[in-house]
Structures are given as C-alpha cells and as structure tokens.
C-alpha cells in the first residue's frame, strides 16, 4: 500500500510537487496523469526514497520512507522512465544484477530470471547483449527488472513511452497481471488513452498540484454532460465574452485571434446558436469540432490547456 500525505518538494524557487495526497491499495492501479513537468516523476522519486520531500509523509507498506527508507525500498519495484539497463550485458545478466540488488541469490534468482524472461517473451534472447534489442524489447526487459523480486508495490514511471503499439499492449497487459496478483501499482503517464484503459483510479496533476482524483466514472461525472467545442478561423476584434455571455452555461476555456475553445452543455443543440452569434460579431469560422466528455475535457476544463502542451 502507498500512502502519500500533503507531499511537497521544491527545487530552489520552483515548487515541483505541492500538497499532493493520495493512497493506492493492493491490487489497484492508480494513474498519475499530467503533462511533462507536472511533477509525476518527482512524486515517484519521493515515494522511492530518491528525493527527500520538504514536507508531507510517504508510507510504503506501512514503512515511512523518510525514517525507514531501507525497509520501504525493500518492498518497492521501480520501472523508471529511462531504459535503465546495461546495454553491454545480456538480458539474463541485467536481470541477475537487478535481482541481486534486491537480495535474490542462487537457485531462486535463476528461477525468477527464467520466469521473467518467459513473461516478457525474451526467453530466446536471454544471452544476447541488450544493445542489439529493439526499443520494445528493451522496455519489456526494463519492466521485468522492476518486478523480478515480486515487490508488493510497483512504481511505473511512464514505462511505455516511445514504444510500438504491439509492445505497449503487451506492457499494459503485464501491468494488469501484476495488479491482478495483488500488487499495488502507481502508474504515471501523459497518455490519456493509456490512463483510461488501464487505471482503476486516476489523479490528475498539473504544476505540481493534484487538481482532481477519483475513478474514471467519477472524474467523467465532474465534467458533466458538457461538450468541448473547438473553433478555428479569424476572431480578431471579436468580443467573444460579450457575444456569448447570454448563452447559459457556456464557458470560454481559451480564446485568441485564430482559435477558440468552449465548454458547452448539450453541444449538438447549442452549436448553431454559437456559430450564428460569432458570425454576426464578425468572426470567420473555418472549422469546428465538437468532442464528447472525456478526461481530456476534464483536463481542459480544470487547467484551461491541453494535456500534451
């Protein structure tokens, strides 16, 4: 189990994580969703004991990381964002090294290595140097090095970045298997689809602050039935707020001279009115896109910007 309470970590004047709290239970996949630089990796760093938080408390399987770091780390498996492997060693040697670092020895280690290689489908490449592997193979091996010692808590820091769709699907399947066996999984990503398809609960993080958390259904409910209307064209000189002010429930998320982003209740019915008002005010609309509620809508609604910005 992971318990994070009021976590704060800053680097000089830059606050990387600010008052973040969440818990992850055994068998659960908790996703930390946010753009690059939102504070996901810093949060993982504090949980793994790599970074010393300025404030707050982190417990892993009941062991406070700050006070009982060694015991807490003994329960952890970390799959870092970088492919943290020795490229000049073979897959087997990498597994042996990282397994050994977690205290595995002898027959037990050899048995786990065999199982892990089978699990990630690299049993035929066990003795090949990693430098000859494809990106997907390296990512799978990176994952296997983190789970070899069967940790009850697994920290996955964007483990599927830059991976081909096939390898990504296999990786996500492996994560589900881990959670299925009772492992408590913290998974960070900036891919909306990945978070939606994998995580039982999600925390949305931006500028170091947890802006929302809950189950997928709960988060969707926060957005309500509001649709996202994206307009592009020429809006120079258009006083959008004045023009659209009388439309009930409509919210302007972004507006500049070429683009406009609106949160609209009951979008399909309100669309003609919105377009007509803007056209009457002198706007030249070239394209409009209406999107159903999603995590992206929520993110946009809460932060006023897109996830990949």
């Amino acid at each position, binding site marked *: 189990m992971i318990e994070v309470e009021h976590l704060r970590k800053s680097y000089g004047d830059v606050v990387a994580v600010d008052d973040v709290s969440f818990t992850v239970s055994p068998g659960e996949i908790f996703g930390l969703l946010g753009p690059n630089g939102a504070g996901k990796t810093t949060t993982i*760093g504090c949980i*793994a*004991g*790599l*970074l010393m938080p300025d404030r707050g408390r982190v417990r892993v399987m009941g062991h406070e990381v700050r006070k009982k770091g*060694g*015991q807490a*780390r*003994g329960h*952890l498996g*970390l799959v*870092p*964002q*970088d*492919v*943290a*492997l*020795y*490229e*000049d*060693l073979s897959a087997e*040697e990498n597994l042996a*090294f*990282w397994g*050994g*670092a*977690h*205290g595995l020895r002898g027959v037990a280690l050899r048995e786990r290595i065999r199982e892990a290689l089978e699990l990630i489908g690299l049993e035929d490449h066990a003795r090949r*140097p990693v430098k000859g592997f494809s990106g997907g193979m390296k990512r799978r091996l990176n994952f296997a*090095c983190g789970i070899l010692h069967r940790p009850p808590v697994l*920290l996955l820091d964007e483990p599927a970045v830059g991976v081909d769709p096939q390898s990504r699907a296999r990786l996500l399947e492996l994560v589900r298997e881990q959670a299925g066996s009772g492992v408590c999984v913290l998974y960070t990503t900036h891919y909306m689809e990945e978070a939606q398809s994998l995580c039982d609960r999600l925390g949305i993080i931006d500028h170091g602050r947890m802006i929302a958390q809950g189950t997928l259904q709960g988060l969707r409910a926060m957005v309500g039935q509001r649709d996202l209307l994206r307009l592009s064209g020429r809006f120079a000189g258009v006083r959008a707020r004045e023009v659209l002010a009388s439309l009930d429930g409509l919210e302007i998320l972004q507006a500049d001279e070429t683009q406009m982003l609106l949160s609209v209740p009951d979008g399909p019915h309100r669309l003609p009115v919105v377009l007509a008002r803007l056209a009457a005010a002198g706007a030249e609309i070239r394209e409009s896109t209406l999107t159903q509620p999603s995590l992206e809508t929520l993110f946009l609604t809460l932060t006023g910007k897109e996830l990949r910005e």
Partner: protein
Amino acid sequence: MAAVKDLRRLRRDPVSLALWLGVPVFVLLLMYALFGRGETRPQGRLLVADEDGSFLSGLVVQAFRQEPLADFFRVEKLAQDQARQQVRRGRASALLIIPKGFGRAVLRNEPVQLTLVTNPAQRILPGIVQETLSLLVDGAFYLQAVAGDEIRKLSETAEGGTDFPEAGVAAASIEFYRIGRSLAGWLSPPRLKLETQVLAPASPARRGFAAAYVPGMVFLALLFLAMGLSADLWRERARGTLRRWLATPRSIASLLAGKLLAAMVVSFAVSLIALGCGLWIAGLPLAPLIPATLWCTFSAALFFLLLSLLQLCAANERTAHVLVNLALFPMILLGGSLFPFEVMPASLARIGRLTPNGWALTRLRELLDGAVDPMRLALTGALLALVAAAAFLLAARRLRYRFAL
C-alpha cells in the same frame, strides 16, 4: 555483485582492455628497442686534430680509446677545418686540437696549449673530455716534478725532437728504474691506506633507461585506466542505472565499492603484466614483482577514487572531461609517469614527487630497488588507505545526494 557486473562489461569492451594493457607494453617494447635491456650510456663523437703527430700526442689520443672512456666516445682523427665544421653542425661532442710541437714542449717542460672546441648543445660528454684532459695535464706536471731532469736529458738527445737514440733510451731507463726504487717505500706497500666501505645504496647509482621508464609507464597505464573507469559514472548516470540503484535496498556506497573492486582487479592484471614485462625488459630481478604489483593496485584504487571525486564534482560530462584532463596531464608530466624524475630539472622533480602518482611512483621504485623500510612502507600504506577512505566517503555522499538524482 556490482564488481562482477563491471568486470563483465569491461570484458565486453576488448578495445579499452587492449589499450590499457597494450599501451604500456608497447611503450616498454619501444624503450627496449631504443635503449636496450641493461645500462646504456650515451656515446659521443670526439674529433682530434693532431697537428703534432708525435708519440706523446698519440698517447693523448690513445687515452680516450681506453676503457672506460671508450664507452663514451668514438674517437676520430680529422683535419682541423673539417673537424670544426663537424662540431659547428652538431655532429660531434668536442674537437681536441693538439698543436704542432706538443710532444717536444711536454718533454722539455715548455708551455704548450691544447685547444678544446665543444658542442654547445651537449654538456655531459664535452665535460668528460675536459675533465680527462685536466687529469692528463696534472699527470704531466707530476711526471715533470719527479723525473723532469731525466726527461729533459732524454729529449736533448732526441734527433729531430722525437726520435730517441738507443743509448739515450737505455740511460733514461736506468734512471727511471732508480727513481722507481727510491719511491718504492711510498708506493709498495703504499703509505696511504685506502679503506673501502660498501654502503647499501639509497637508490641505484646508475639506472638503465628502460629500468627508469618501467615504473612510470605502469603508472601512466594506471592513470589512463582510472580515468576511463571513473568516467563510467557518467555513462551510468545517463542510462539511469544509478537512479534505479538508489531505489533498491542497497546503499550507493556498495555500488561504488563494486566499481572500486573492479578497478582494482583490472589494475592488478595490468600492473602484473606491465611490470613483469618491464622488469624482464630492463633486466631487473623479478623478486619484488608481487609486492610492487600490489602497491600499484592500491595506488590505482586511490587514483580511481580521486578521479571519481573530480568527475562527481563537475556539473556535466563535458566539464568533467576537461576537469579530469586538467588534473591528469600535469600529474602525468610532473609525476614521473612520462619522463623519469632523473631527466627532469631538480625543482620540477621535487614538485612531481608531491603529486599522488609521483609519491606512489617513488615508493614503487623503492620497492623495486629493495630499498624499502618496512615501517615506512606500513606508514605509507596507512596514509594511502586514509586518503582513499576519505575520497570514497566524499564520492559516495556526492553520488547519493547530487550526482545520481
């Protein structure tokens, strides 16, 4: 475990291994080819313009063809003009001009001047010629003092100044015999007693060129090795393996200790091979090979830790590269790793002996020369261990709280 990992990785990098092993062996072989196995001396060319051509001028030339001067000089007779030209072009160490009438003047105890023209680019060999001539002049003076009358009488009987009649030679021989008898009380047994004491040499009086270069070359290889292995910290950082290690229950000090152990294993192998080859090439006894190899290994451990500390202090890999090179090259140049202390100006050699490699090299030479005091060696070893321990602790701390994150 971490050491095994690093040794495996090194095994997969045969080019680096070959360079670490190959460079010192190659340089030593080169030294062997250039300077030979044992003690070798520089040999110069001494030109003699003998304008007298007498028996005595021939004796002077002959003096330089006798052992041990023959080891230092190749004596050639040339006409004065030609010989001066050769010296001017730097093709000879010195030119000795024996003027006409030299033999006659010596026999008659008349003033005469020998001229020595030296090559300004050389110091030692012309100096030897000068000293030898001084001895010859002194010898002539004492000969004149003891048997001046007999020599003058003999020279007066000479026909044409240099050809002596048989009667004159016989009379002179009787006189020389008489003088010898009168001096016998002084010469046999000699009144002056020479007491000879053999002292244990603090350092070998004369060291062959290859022997002088061997320890320095070994340290050169060890310094390059330490530089290469310490730079691996940046590769580990770039891959994220250091950060991953921090998330394991083991301490970062154990990873550093593994790296240190791997560096020591490789250093031991390199030192053993390089020193073994070097001692054999230099013709030195192999008895101190193992203690000397162990000393090299512990010294290399110190170099590795000091260079690792430098690597860890840099803000980025490029700065680290510059920083390490800034430290390493003066160490190599001054610390006797490229040029032996013997060929360096005394002031620079003094500074060089204070560098980590210069200090370790001095101790290695003492070990190889068998001139090491066990107590001093123990103290030196303790000092090395102390500095290494401090460097290790600082490096581990820096690694944990700054570098790996």
